[in-house]
């Protein structure tokens, strides 16, 4: 079961990601990105991180991507015209990918836990509560600071989007 769901969601996610980078219309890109996030949330669930999956959907797919779409509409960005294939750039990408692939290989082979197999049922379903407890006891400082950060971000956005300073 684990394998089946994993492969479905993995392939879906990779397909959506590829669609993001190959689409010419920015709205289509954004929607594909939403799809990517949804598949990612599903993958979180296969990893038994239920709370995080919910947070991913709510924040990323629900807030961030909506914001993206607002901006695309605001700026009225048109679909890109067909341009010739930039072989140089693609060659560069392939080379870099190979390099990073090589590094990934080294990492994956060196991990001590790399071969441990996924089995469902071992994790707690109460993880929202658990995370909440840890968040407000051990990680209270980062939590509060993040709150301040959000305030600052809000102020920043308001300031930045003024027409006249």
């Amino acid at each position, binding site marked *: 079961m684990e394998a089946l769901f*994993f492969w479905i969601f993995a392939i879906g996610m990779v397909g959506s990601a590829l669609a993001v*980078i190959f689409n010419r219309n920015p709205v289509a890109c954004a929607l594909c990105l939403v799809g990517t996030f949804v598949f*990612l949330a599903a993958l979180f669930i296969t990893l038994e991180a239920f709370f995080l999956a919910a947070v991913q959907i709510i924040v990323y797919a629900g807030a*961030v991507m909506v914001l993206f779409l607002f901006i695309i509409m605001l700026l009225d960005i048109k679909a890109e015209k067909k341009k010739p294939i930039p072989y140089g750039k693609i060659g560069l990408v392939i080379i870099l*990918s190979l390099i990073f692939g090589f590094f990934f290989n080294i990492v994956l082979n060196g991990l001590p836990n790399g071969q441990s197999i996924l089995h469902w049922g071992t994790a707690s379903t109460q993880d929202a509560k658990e995370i909440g407890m840890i968040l407000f006891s051990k990680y209270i400082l980062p939590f509060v600071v993040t709150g301040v*950060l959000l305030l600052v*971000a809000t102020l920043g956005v308001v300031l930045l*989007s003024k027409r006249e300073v």
Partner: protein
Amino acid sequence: MNWLTEITLNHYLALSGILFMIGMAGVMIRRSILVIYMCLELMLNAANLALVAFNRFSPAARDYDGQIMVFFIITVAAAEVAVGLALIVSLYRLRQTTNVNDLNSLKF
């Protein structure tokens, strides 16, 4: 055939790597600022996936440190997207273009 039926940590990490590289390719290839920003988000999410995978496969029980980290990452990413998009809007108002090749006044 084991790698098809038995999902290990390595699978999730490889997936995270592939996602990261797709995002990287997008940043290098795409010309529109907004799409580049979206690919940036892809890279962030790849990191998130890796962290959650590590958390799931860690030997200690009831260890949610990885998930807490992802929680914070998501929050900060959201704030960052807001500010970044405000910047892009200001830039668009100034330059009237979103093509990244036109935004080159900082050259030598």
